[in-house]
């Protein structure tokens, strides 16, 4: 590739993209890691939502943390960013729906978003804050799904190389 000058809007877009990617990656790695670390708490947290039949509580609690870790890893290195972002958005929508339904049904639970979870004292719930945070993360995921090309990503590296080779 010849020398290139990057336009200002593009630099901003690059910065926004890489920031969105890394923030989402960090959140998923931390939340997935904490859930994976405390598997029993995660079962409890999933069950506390009272959304799933008992036979599905275990499998969901087993898969979810590692799915989050996988998404976090993909986003961190920028591999298949669009796919990861779409999946992240789907996960966020499910989280928001679950927390909103817990709030609507008057459950006294902690969202278990970052591990922990289960019953808390009524009045110690934080549904609004949890939903707002998830909505912000959803926005980042949607942005990345629309503009998945970001600096310091395997995606960009691979496409450049492929373009070079062709």
């Amino acid at each position, binding site marked *: *590739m*010849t020398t*290139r*000058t*990057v*336009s200002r*809007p*593009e630099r901003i*877009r690059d910065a926004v993209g890489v920031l969105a990617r890394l923030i989402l990656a960090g959140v998923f790695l931390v939340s997935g890691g904490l859930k*994976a*670390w*405390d*598997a*029993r*708490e995660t*079962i*409890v947290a999933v*069950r*506390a939502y*009272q959304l799933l039949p008992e036979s599905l509580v*275990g*499998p969901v*609690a*087993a*898969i979810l*943390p*590692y*799915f989050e*870790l*996988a998404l976090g*890893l*993909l986003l961190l290195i920028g*591999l*298949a960013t*669009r*796919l*990861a972002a779409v999946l992240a958005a789907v996960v966020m929508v499910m989280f928001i729906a679950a927390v909103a339904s817990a709030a609507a*049904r008057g*459950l*006294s639970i902690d969202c278990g978003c970052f591990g*922990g979870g*289960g*019953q*808390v*004292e*009524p009045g*110690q719930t934080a549904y609004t804050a949890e939903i707002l945070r998830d909505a912000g993360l959803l926005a980042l995921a949607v942005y990345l799904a*629309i*503009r*998945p*090309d970001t600096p310091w990503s*395997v*995606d*960009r590296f*691979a*496409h*450049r190389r*492929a*373009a070079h080779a*062709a």
Partner: protein
Amino acid sequence: MNGYGEDSAVAQSGSKSPGKGSTSGGRAANGKSTTGKAGGGSAGSAGKSGRTTAPAGKSRQSVAAARRSSPSNNRTQLIIGGIAIVVIIGIVVFGVVLNRQQTATQAEGYGASTQSVATASADGVVTVSKPGSTPKATIDVYEDAMCPACAELERQYGQQINQQLDNGNLTVNYHMVNFLNPRSPSGDYSTRAAGALLCVAQNSGSQPGVYMAYHSALFSPDHQPEEGGSSDLTNQQLADLATSVGANEAAAGCISLGQQTQAAATAATAFLATLNQVTGGQAQTPTVVHNGAPLSLTTNWLSTLVS
């Protein structure tokens, strides 16, 4: 649409020009597409005229279309997507295997405690240990009889706790709280169950294993009421359950009359205050406190504690 085409673009000098067309033209170009590059370049040099000679939207579309059909780019996309899916599946499968180990019932098959006895203090704490033992660890357990998480703790670690009690390695102080009363069908199940446990500790505490058996029974899926469910156990049913695990008549009578319910409510208020203190205002059940701090209940917490 692959989404990478227009973003990986190079802006030529033309992008600095105020002309809208030139910016778009420049953006559409990348190192590979010579037509796009030329478009950007010419638009840049031609300034505003770029918009009239080569409509920006159209040129971008055609470049994107060309890129879509580019075999090398498509292949890259496919390879990347394939690797990503393999990574996801690999991590999840690994996790599920690991998870199965983490959530396995500890000391499976050990069963009920046979050696432990229970005593209730004046402030409602029930202390369980093996008589004459010098335990390696003392834990303070905070539970609510309605709490499903406590039932999960019981399922996974109940038998291991029994085992360590019987080995004389462990002392457990049970603090029953009642903040989930509102989630119980009767509105006061947590308190009544806590009172029932006090009745058993006071009257049948010296019978080996009876308190632990009653505690287990209350948290078993067969007996624990469902949150927001339609019915829970009456005092009489709580008494019958105590009898079924070997509690004496005095204990059953105490439970059926709800004699310790008020004491349990008073104790629960104090326990909740302590629990809030220990957890920094994040009271939740179950909480296991050791040396004044809540334990993270990961797989080997108990074996680590008594090793």
